[in-house]
């Protein structure tokens, strides 16, 4: 439904402040570790599209590395979703080539690692 405004050219006054071209060539990517609820929210990272998918574990480490589960992750067994769809990423190929776009949400599940004392923490 369109906004009810006092002017007809509302959009001229109301620019989009969240467009890909405003990010100096980066994609704003969200990375979320399932079942680890002690982290308050998905992390956000600015990544250029040529970033190899295989760099994501290192990116994730900057935030999630403080969790005792993190070093136990076997990255070859990790299950991934991209914007809600399961994917089998090629670590050697770039995120841009594999469908990651501005504000994509990448979620990963680490089988066998269900948080502190298995309590999803």
């Amino acid at each position, binding site marked *: *439904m*369109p*906004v*009810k*405004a*006092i002017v007809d050219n*509302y*959009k001229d006054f*109301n*620019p*989009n*402040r*969240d*467009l*890909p071209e*405003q*990010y*100096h060539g*980066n994609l*704003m990517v*969200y990375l*979320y570790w*399932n*079942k680890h*609820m*002690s*982290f*308050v*929210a*998905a*992390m*956000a*990272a*600015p990544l250029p599209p040529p970033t190899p998918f295989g760099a994501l574990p290192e990116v994730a480490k*900057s*935030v999630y590395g*403080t969790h*005792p589960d993190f070093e136990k992750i076997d990255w070859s067994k990790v299950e991934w979703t991209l*914007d*809600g769809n399961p994917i089998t990423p090629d670590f050697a190929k770039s995120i841009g080539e594999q469908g990651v*776009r*501005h*504000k*994509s*949400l990448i979620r990963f599940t680490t089988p066998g690692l269900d948080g*502190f*004392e298995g*309590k*999803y*923490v």
Partner: protein
Amino acid sequence: MAPTKKMGIKQKYAHLTRGLDWETTYEKMDDVFPYDKFEGIKITDWSKWEDPFRLTMDSYWKFQAEKERKLYAVIDAFAQNNGQTNISDARYVNVLKLFLTGISPEEYQAHRGFAFTGRHLRGVGPRVACQQQSLDELRHFQTQCHTISHFNKFFNGLSEFRTMHDRVFYLSVPKSFFDDARTAGPFEFMIAIGFAFEYVLTNLLFVPFMSGAAYNGDMSTVTFGFSAQSDESRHMTLGIEVIKFLLEQHPDNLPIVQEWVDKWFWRGFRLLGLVSMMMDYMLPKKVMSWKEAWEIYFVEAGGSLFKDLERYGLKMPKYHEQATEACEHISHQLYGLLYQLSHVTGLHAWMPDDEHMDWLSEKYPNTFDKYYRPRFELWKQQEAEGKRFYYNGLLQLCHTCQLPMTFTEPDDPTTTCFRESEYEGQHYHFCSDGCKDIFDREPEKYISSWLPIQQIFQGNCGGPTIPDVLAYYMFGPNDGGEYVGSEDNKLWESWKNATTKEAAE
């Protein structure tokens, strides 16, 4: 000349207001009042507006001046007696920091909003009521600054509150709430602030803060609360009057008003999440739990209010059941947020002690031990190992409420709630169905939201590194982070040691 007879209050009020609503002749009425039609609200008879207060301007001034005199006498006495040393604990001051940075600037926004609305409603009754409320809100802003400024002489995190309000990530939650209301039309503003905020939700904001101050020995803030109380009852009356007036004027108004009520209930609920964390975690001496407050002030009081409004066809706000269910969780989730992000805030956070955690178990028997105590246990263990847990990065925000995406699925507290919309080829993320609906109703509006994390990445917040951003926020080096070992903590300990020494001598 015969002496003029003294007028009665009613007569005075009639003179005060009714004379102001003349029909313009040089200019068209619609040109003089351009804002009160575009929202689609239909008013057939402005004179039906009932103002039960009928407060004349001269009695308004007299009454307010009297309250000011009392308040400033208490503030002076508090300062002279070093009242700051008699509070329960220096942790309490973080409540004042949250209030001064997150609420007081919104008093000012409310002042601006009511001034605008008071100018632009062509009915004279609401115009006068809005102008009085506008003055009240300005007074609230001013007296809060004066009350809290005494604490600024001793504690960190208070001095740059004005800049912080405009820039800091978590303060964009209250700021965007008021920005949203103030960029709406005058009727939506009245429903947003006058009805949803002042009537439905205000007790959940002021009772916790003011009783919290009383329980924790902060008599100056308590006095401010008293001084604002009579204003608030006037504001509540205006809020209820506006909704009844709109619903009585024309049946076409109902669907518009219902959408606004739904929207502003949810926005208000999200905003009050900050109060929930304050009540359950930040007050050294607790008043009641957030859940208890919600039961009393929303489920019971709000329930009977909406029962009363049923005769106009108005329904309980959409997602109110979700909100009530979420009250088992939000304070724990949001304090977890503060705990792990306190190093990038102007607030201190700390590990709740055992007694506090047992209180939480008792107040939240369904959820605390099962979902939230384990988090604190992990963090406690990390503290003991000298690795106090901080979230070392930037995070995902809800595009509507601007809180971090921390809330969980309504039926599953172990899964974060992610909602998404697509608009003009772009993704937008939301923390809840309520926030998604608000965006979907007016995407053209929310695409221009100033989202703090997005703005950091775009290079608009002082620079790319965390220290750059903190400098832009005007945080001092000791404003945030862990409470234990902070300057505030050390100062407090030195005061306590001095009193014990004195007592011993």
